[in-house]
Each structure stands twice: as C-alpha cells, then as structure tokens.
C-alpha cells in the first residue's frame, strides 16, 4: 500500500459517480485483433457478414444468368452446382445467422443493462473462427471443392471448414443466450426483457441444438468421403435442411424480435400485449426445429405437414401484434418502419408459400417452389429485418444515423427484388414442375421469360444490399453525431446511454423501477 504526504483532493459532486473505466486496449489494428469488447466484436461480425452477403448476391446473379435458358453454358461444367451450393451457404451460414449473432453480440448486453457480454473471450474467439472458416470455405470452392467438387482434398477442406463455421456460430450463440439469461439488470425480469433479446434467447437456443446436428451430419459425410472416397447418398440434403422447411423459419424468429422492438418504438406506443409478442417468437421457434427432417421419410410425416401449415399462424399473429401497436400509437414512416413492414409481409408470404409447399398432392417438393419460398423467408423477411435493424440501431452501432432516403431505396429494391425473384420461381414450380437447381430444363418461352424476371429481381435485391452497405460506410464517417435516443421514446436500456456507448456501456448500473 503506498503512502503519500498530502491528502487526496476531495471528490466534487460531478465526480461522485464516475463512469467505470475500461481496461486499456491497444490502439489500431492490434486493438481490433485482440479485443474482447462486445461492441467491437459485434461490429466485426456485422461487417464481415455484410461482406459475405455481397459474395452470396454475386453468386446468385451468376445462377440467375445461367438459368435464363436451358443449357446456357455460361459457366464451366460442374461450376453451376458448386455456385448453387456456395450461394446458399454464403447467404445463410455466412450472412444471415452471423449477422444476427453479431447484432446480438453488440446489442443484447446493452438491452439487458450489462457492461459486458457473457464469455467475452469466447465471443471474440467465435468471431475469429467464423472469419477464418468462412474464408476457408470460399477457398475450398476455388480449389474445386464443395459438396459437388471433384478434388478430394478440397471437398475435405470444405466439410471441415463448414464444421468450423457451425461450431463458431454455436459459441457466438451460447455467449449471447447466456447474457440474456444471467446478466440482466436489477428489475429486468424475463417478461420485461426487450423483444430482440427474447428472439436471441429463442433463436440462439435453437442454434445451440440445431448446429450440433449439422456438425454431426457433416462428420458422417466427412468420414465417408475421406475414407471411402465417395460422398454418401443425399449428402447435400444433409446440409441443405438447415435452410429448408421447417428450419427456414429460424430467420423468422430473429426477424420477429427486430420488428417487435422497432415498430413500438417508432409508433411511440409500447406493445399492448408483450406476452403475445413473446408467444409469436416462441411459436416461430418451435416450428423451426428441423434436424429431424434428416430422416428421408420425415417429409411424408404428418408432423412435417402440420408444422408447415402452422407456420402461417405466427406470421399472421406477428402482423396482428404490429398492426395493433401501430394503430394505437402514432407511427412515423421512417426507413426502419418501412423495412420492418416489408419484412413482416414477406414472412407471411413465405409462410403461406411454405404451407402450400407441404401439401403432398400438389407435388411441389423439389421444384423451384422451394427456392421461391426460401427466398421469401430468408432474403425477404430475414434480409429486410437485418436492414431494419441496421437502420434502427445505427446510432448505437456506428454512432450516426443512416440516411432515411437510402433506407427507403433499400426497402424498395429488396422488397421488389425479392417478390420478382421468388414469384417466377413459385410459378415455375407450380405450373411447369421446374426442378430446383436444374441447369437443363424444359425451356418454354414462359419459363425463359420468368427466369429472366427472376434474375432481374435478384439483381435488384443485390443492388439494395449494395446501397445498404454504402449507407453504413457513409454513416461510419459521421461517427459520434447521433443522440442517445434519436427516435425519442426508446423504452429499453440501450437508449439510455450515449451513441455510441462508452467502453463499459453505462455510467451507472441501470435498474428497472416501473
């Protein structure tokens, strides 16, 4: 203990409750590489996932161009199926799920009033694992890997990197879920917890039990390929279930959480029935449990049909809860609200398409109907909700609001693009029995025209993503210009601290008193 000659100066009134100081982190690149601050890690998750979104979008456009005509042969032999699978993996496992994990990593501690995330070093490790394995996954395709690849070592690399991606996402989800369960501020009961955090609890919990199933299947595929030299039957289906019915509604869980936070704040009216909001999230979660469809006979099961049909209910209920809140309040038609409404509508459309798709006599399974439905839920509902979250929480994330005009443009491009992309696929699947992912098909004039519309829709949606990323980059240059509560009336803790928040989030421990 040190001794001094003079008495320390008495603290002034302003100094009475000083902000907790942050551990000193290295500046510059070293700081980013070694950080365990949930805000930095969350921003890295989000930025990386947006970069992978661009990859997925470009690949989607290549697929659309190839399908303009049967046997168009724009791509080399064997490349089409590789691009097809990488497009799906990039969209779901490298963009959508990591984006929401990044959003959770950044926002959940703020929403629950905690100065940090649970297992901060685990969360940072999960991010680096995701980045490295995502890059390895792309590299394996370059080396002629992927599930349809012909170079054995590249296929092995593909499977191992996919295992690492899934493991990293699971650790990221574990960190966020534990934060919701254990680090809430005094008075913040689970029922009072904001809806985004609720969706992280449900969606993250589902990731924790579904990603290991994906890993187990990948281990099986890897062993058979590595030792027997051939992939087992249905290898791709063993991976693609993760973005097919019913697991596809996992995107709806996160989307519902975003929408149920955005709309009440912008309508200046709390949810009248928060339990209804939680129920919607929970029901979507239950209906998205999908590892069991790995059994080939499962799609003939009554449970599969029932879950597909029932998915319409939470989508309708979500619209009802949001509509009730908007009607009771005075909503401002700003970009996050427009993006949210688009997301809710496309979730309903996707759920309706999914309900029709499971009706066996219609024989839509395996046709482009599936692709149309997946695009509606994943790109439409999930993607628009991601952009709504970016616009809504931009003041916290980047310290500056995103351009409202750019937000309207993104809503128009992604909403319109998704409808144009998915609509023709639904029609081709229903009326022409066009097989999903086929490069050779019965190319009637109608089919070719609709495929052209679909490709144009994909291009519009990709343009929307580029505009969104541009708006984020532009906001990053205006860092520090946002108010603590720019929307006025934000009811959760993140709006009580500055934008962007200080190192330890809150100057004083927040507490719910009412």
């Amino acid at each position: 203990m040190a001794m001094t000659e003079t008495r320390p100066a008495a603290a002034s009134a302003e100094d009475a409750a000083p902000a907790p100081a942050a551990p000193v982190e290295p500046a510059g690149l070293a700081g980013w590489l070694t950080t365990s601050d949930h805000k930095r890690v969350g921003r890295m998750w989000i930025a990386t996932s947006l970069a992978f979104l661009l990859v997925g979008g470009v690949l989607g456009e290549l697929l659309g161009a190839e399908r303009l005509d049967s046997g168009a042969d724009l791509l080399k032999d064997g490349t089409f199926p590789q691009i097809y699978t990488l497009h799906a993996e990039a969209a779901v496992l490298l963009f959508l799920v990591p984006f929401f994990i990044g959003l959770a990593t950044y926002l959940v501690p703020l929403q629950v009033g905690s100065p940090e995330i649970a297992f901060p070093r685990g969360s940072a490790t999960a991010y680096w694992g995701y980045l490295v394995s995502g890059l390895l996954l792309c590299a394996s395709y370059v080396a002629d890997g992927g599930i349809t690849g012909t170079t054995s070592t590249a296929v092995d690399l593909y499977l191992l990197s996919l295992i690492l991606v899934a493991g990293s996402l699971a650790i990221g989800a574990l960190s966020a879920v534990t934060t919701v369960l254990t680090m809430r501020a005094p008075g913040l009961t689970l029922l009072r917890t904001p809806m985004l955090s609720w969706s992280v609890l449900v969606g993250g919990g589902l990731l924790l039990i579904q990603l290991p199933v994906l890993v187990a299947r990948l281990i099986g595929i890897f062993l058979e390929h590595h030792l027997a030299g051939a992939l087992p039957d249905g290898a791709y289906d063993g991976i693609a279930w993760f973005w097919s019915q019913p697991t596809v509604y996992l995107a709806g869980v996160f989307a519902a959480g975003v929408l149920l936070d955005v709309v009440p704040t912008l309508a200046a009216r709390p949810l009248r029935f928060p339990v209804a909001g939680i129920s919607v999230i929970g029901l979507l979660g239950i209906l998205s449990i999908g590892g069991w469809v790995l059994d080939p006979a499962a799609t003939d099961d009554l449970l599969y049909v029932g879950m597909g049909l029932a998915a319409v209910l939470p989508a309708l209920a979500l619209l009802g809860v949001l509509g009730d809140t908007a009607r009771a309040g005075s909503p401002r038609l700003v970009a996050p609200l427009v993006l949210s409404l688009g997301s809710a509508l496309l979730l309903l459309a996707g759920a309706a398409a999914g309900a029709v798709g499971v009706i066996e006599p219609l024989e839509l399974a395996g046709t482009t109907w599936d692709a149309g439905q997946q695009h509606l839920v994943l790109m439409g509902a999930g993607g628009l909700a991601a952009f709504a979250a970016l616009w809504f929480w931009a003041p916290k994330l980047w310290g500056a609001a995103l351009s409202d005009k750019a937000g309207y443009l993104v809503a128009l491009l992604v909403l319109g693009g998704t409808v144009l992309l998915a609509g023709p696929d639904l029609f081709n699947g229903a009326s022409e029995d066009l097989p999903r992912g086929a490069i050779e098909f019965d190319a009637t004039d109608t089919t070719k025209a609709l495929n052209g519309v679909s490709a144009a829709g994909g291009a519009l949606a990709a343009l929307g993503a580029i505009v969104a990323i541009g708006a984020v980059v532009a906001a990053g240059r205006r860092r520090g210009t946002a108010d603590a509560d720019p929307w006025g009336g934000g009811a959760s803790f993140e709006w009580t601290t500055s934008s962007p928040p200080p190192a330890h989030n809150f100057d004083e421990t927040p507490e719910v008193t009412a």
Partner: protein
Amino acid sequence: MSTAVAAYDPIGIEPAPAPIPGRRNVLLVGSLLACAAGTALLGALLGGYFSARDVARAANQPWPGENLVLPNVALFVTYIGLLLSSFTAQWALAAIKLDDRRQAYLAFASTIGLGLLFVNGMTFCWTRMGLAVGDSPFATHMYAVTVTHALVVIAAIVAWVVVGFRVLGGQFSPRNSEPIAAAIVVWHFVVASGLVIWWCLWFLEGGPG
C-alpha cells in the same frame, strides 16, 4: 506531519470497472447450454449410427460385422470407471462446500485420474477390436460416436485441470463454488452421455448380458 493513504496504483492503469450487479451463475448456465449442445451433437451422431444400422439390416448385411468380438470386459471396466468419476466429482463439490481442502484436492485428482483412465481404456478397446475406420459402416459410425465422446471427455478433463489449479490457489469457498458446480455439470454430462453410448453401441450389439 500528516499522512494519508492513497490507492495502490503501481503502473498507472485506471481502476477496473465495478463488479457486474445481478450476475447470476453465468458459468453454470453457460455450461448447461454447452451440455445441451453436446447432447444434440452426440444424439445426432447416434441417430446416424442407428440409421446406418437399419440400412445394413434391411440389406441383410452383418452388423456389427462377421467375426467381430467386442472386448466386453474391457468396455465394462472402462465405462464403470467413468461412472465412478461422477461420484468423485460430486465429492469435490461437497468438500469445497465443507471447506475441506484436503478432501477437495483428493476428489479433484481422483476425478481427473478416472477421466484419463477412461481415455486410456477406450484406446485399449479400439485396439483390441482391430477395426480400422472405414472398414465397415459399423466401424465408421462407431468411431464417429466414440471418438467424439472421447474428445468431449478430454475437454472436460482440461476444464477440471483448470478449476483444480484454481482450487489449489484457494480461490473457492463454501460461498463461492459456482465454477466447481459448472465443472461438475459438464462432468455429469460426459458420464451420462458415455453410459448412453455404452448402452447403444456395445450393450445392444452383443455386450455382457
């Protein structure tokens, strides 16, 4: 001359932030969630095993394989040893709660030792069977399940070694035993999953009984 006491600040760093209020069993809840994920992983691997077995039996192929002799005695001893470690793990928590450090050290050492014996026993059983990975669908799936489980056991041993060193450092007390409770949850999980695997892979395929 008056003296005053100042905060100890040897290298000029700012003070650490205040402890997080309302923090409730973070490590314990995280461990429970990790166990849930582990259950899903091992459950899905077992699902793949049974699926392959159904396919083989439908095609009238031998399962687990012709002339394959399971080392049942060695397997029994290996898994019973793992089961015993559950009791020693619980003993560690009881000892900490009684603040009996000598017993805590003994319980930790016993648990880690039994865990290492399990890993050793499994490698012995694999060797005795003489099956190579990929020899048959049974071999492939058996190794997928048991090697994954053995890796989980090794991870649990590492966790116990870390917690054990902290016990040696005197970090835990009857009022601060959450990390030990978390380590015990993980240990009970690896033991329970090991017994399920023993039942599914060895007992059902012609084990003792």
